């Protein structure tokens, strides 16, 4: 029969197709960020050479672009690679010694033994400094309403599905001047595991006086409801619907209206200064070492002008490195990131909040002690 010849012709093409599909699947996500690596034209002020590899939180990616350009401008012979794999992979690679530094949205802790493992990798306690502070905006899309004031309990009620209509008395009481329609509320959440969700739910559970019955989690804890992939997915879903409300990094919300959140007795908009203020008043985590600046973000602050719905991301490094070259590179880079200049560059490129003076000074002291050992 002729059929066998078709099979013969088909088999290789099937194999090739299958192979190419697997290959593309593996290929995705391996891109390295080395934007501006050929920035050698700028003034030669640094004497450092070599390659500095880091990986971790994708939230810091945009800021890292700015730092990469700025740092390599100062040190033209250094190549900085930051792989925005996500916090989890960043921590794993750091522990395994694959990278010199890591970026992570949730600080190293010992829930799964990661802090101990990281300390073992370094030989001494690790350095953890806040590098990227960004307000998380609660944005909404509702015809005829441009501004809205809400408190934590009401936001929790909306996202938990308890408050289902925009003209609910709970919302109307907080917004006496607004003309609220009877539209159904469609809350949108992230379907991927993300630092944004973890920080947002942490805020809700701490600040809402029990209106939010769930634990803080990187994965959205409420069953059902509208979900979308990534920050851009949430923004797209909120933009495309009517009566939708969602949360995202404040620099990414675009044209959407944002909610002013009640802090103490006043309503605060998600601005950079208000976000940085919260970091300054937050207490350190339990058992934090001298070089560990991880904080429990104070979500219930009543400090005037503070905005407690923030995402705080850390850079992690060792106190000592085996070679002088590695130590010099990491030290110079970390010093640049927590410097006023570095923070300003990130603010401009990523819309993040520069660290306040006190936090920045302490971070600078810690990273300037990095040495070879």
């Amino acid at each position, binding site marked *: 029969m002729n059929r066998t010849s078709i099979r013969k012709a088909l088999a290789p093409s099937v194999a090739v197709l299958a192979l190419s599909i697997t290959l593309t699947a593996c290929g995705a996500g391996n891109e390295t960020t080395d934007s501006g690596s050929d920035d050698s034209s700028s003034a030669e002020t640094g004497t450092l050479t070599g390659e500095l590899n880091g990986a971790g939180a994708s939230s810091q990616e945009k800021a890292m672009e700015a730092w990469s350009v700025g740092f390599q401008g100062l040190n033209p012979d250094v190549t900085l690679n930051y792989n925005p794999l996500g916090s989890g992979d960043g921590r794993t690679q750091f522990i395994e010694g694959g990278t010199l530094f890591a970026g992570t949205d949730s600080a190293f802790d010992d829930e*799964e033994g990661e802090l101990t493992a990281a300390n073992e990798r370094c030989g001494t306690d690790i350095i953890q400094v806040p590098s990227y502070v960004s307000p998380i905006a609660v944005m909404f899309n509702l015809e005829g309403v441009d501004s809205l004031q809400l408190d934590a309990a009401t936001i929790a009620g909306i996202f938990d599905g308890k408050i289902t209509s925009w003209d609910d008395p709970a919302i109307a009481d907080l917004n006496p001047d607004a003309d609220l329609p009877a539209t159904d509320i469609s809350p949108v959440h992230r379907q991927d595991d993300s630092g944004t969700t973890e920080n947002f739910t942490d805020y809700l559970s701490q600040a809402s006086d029990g209106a939010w019955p769930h634990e803080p989690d990187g994965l959205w804890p409420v069953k059902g409801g509208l979900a979308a*992939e990534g920050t851009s997915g949430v923004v797209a879903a909120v933009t495309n619907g009517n009566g939708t409300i969602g949360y995202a990094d404040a620099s990414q919300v675009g044209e959407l209206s944002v909610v002013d959140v009640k802090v103490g007795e006043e309503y605060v908009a998600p601005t950079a200064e208000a976000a940085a203020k919260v970091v300054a008043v937050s207490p350190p985590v339990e058992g934090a070492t001298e070089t560990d600046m991880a904080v429990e973000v104070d979500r219930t602050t009543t400090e005037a002008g503070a905005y407690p719905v923030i995402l705080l991301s850390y850079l992690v490094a060792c106190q000592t490195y085996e070679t002088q070259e590695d130590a010099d590179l990491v030290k110079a880079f970390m010093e640049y990131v927590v410097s006023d200049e570095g923070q300003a560059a990130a603010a401009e490129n990523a819309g993040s909040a520069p660290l306040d003076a006190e936090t920045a000074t302490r971070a600078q002291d810690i990273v300037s002690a990095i040495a070879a050992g």
Partner: protein
Amino acid sequence: MATLAGVFIFLTIEGVPGFFQEEQFYKGAGNFWGYVDHLLFGTVLAATIALIVAVPLAFGIALVVSHYAPKWIAGPVAYVIDLLAAVPSVVFGLWGINLFAPKMVPIYDWLNAHLGWLPFFEGPVNPVGTTILTAGLVLAIMILPIITAISREVFTQTPVLHEEAALALGATRWEMIRLAVFPYAKSGMVSAVMLGLGRALGETMAVAMVLSGGGGISFNLIASSNPTSIAANIASQYKENTPGTLHVLIATGLVLFLVTFLVNFAARWIVAGNDRKMAR
């Protein structure tokens, strides 16, 4: 084959511990089966929708191109369909969430208003259109070119003598296709559908971007909360993984691998069985 074996060995070694993780890693589901069942359901449902839409369309287009249309129109049509295969899945995802899904909302409203008594179209309607039906339709468009291209190739391979013999016996063109082309091309058509199904089951980015996932098992096709697919779930959860969740995710990957393998195997077996019957 070596690649396939390598993938299988990796999945088994890394995935098997995922079956026996502590409860916290299953995100409230209790055990592995409770975690994976709705994912499996979502994967199969989205792929089924895609196949129901894409297969008749693809065979139709392939027949038109190979047997009905004049050459000057068949060539460009085939070319354009093939081009669809070159569009990356993220692009389909972007198109799906920003343009296609919102455009589907009025249609879903209509379906709910007129066919709401069916369990498939119960309200309330997803206000953004990011439903499993949308995801299935996007998948259908993505697998269309593969199925079309392969079945077109097989259709054109039918011996001209068979076709002419059928026509000479007084068959109409459609009867000729049923008598001569389909029996001849059957195994090739199954191959085409299997490749399409493989892509639909494994498609990651487009589903993750378009679908509003996170829901449980439900046949409602137009709701806000849908079961997501295994591949899309891995993509969503992988970024912030910890060692424990990673094992669970790889274990779900192993389940997907086994399902794909079983479906392929079953299809081959059915075709082979038919061949045996015909040979007798």
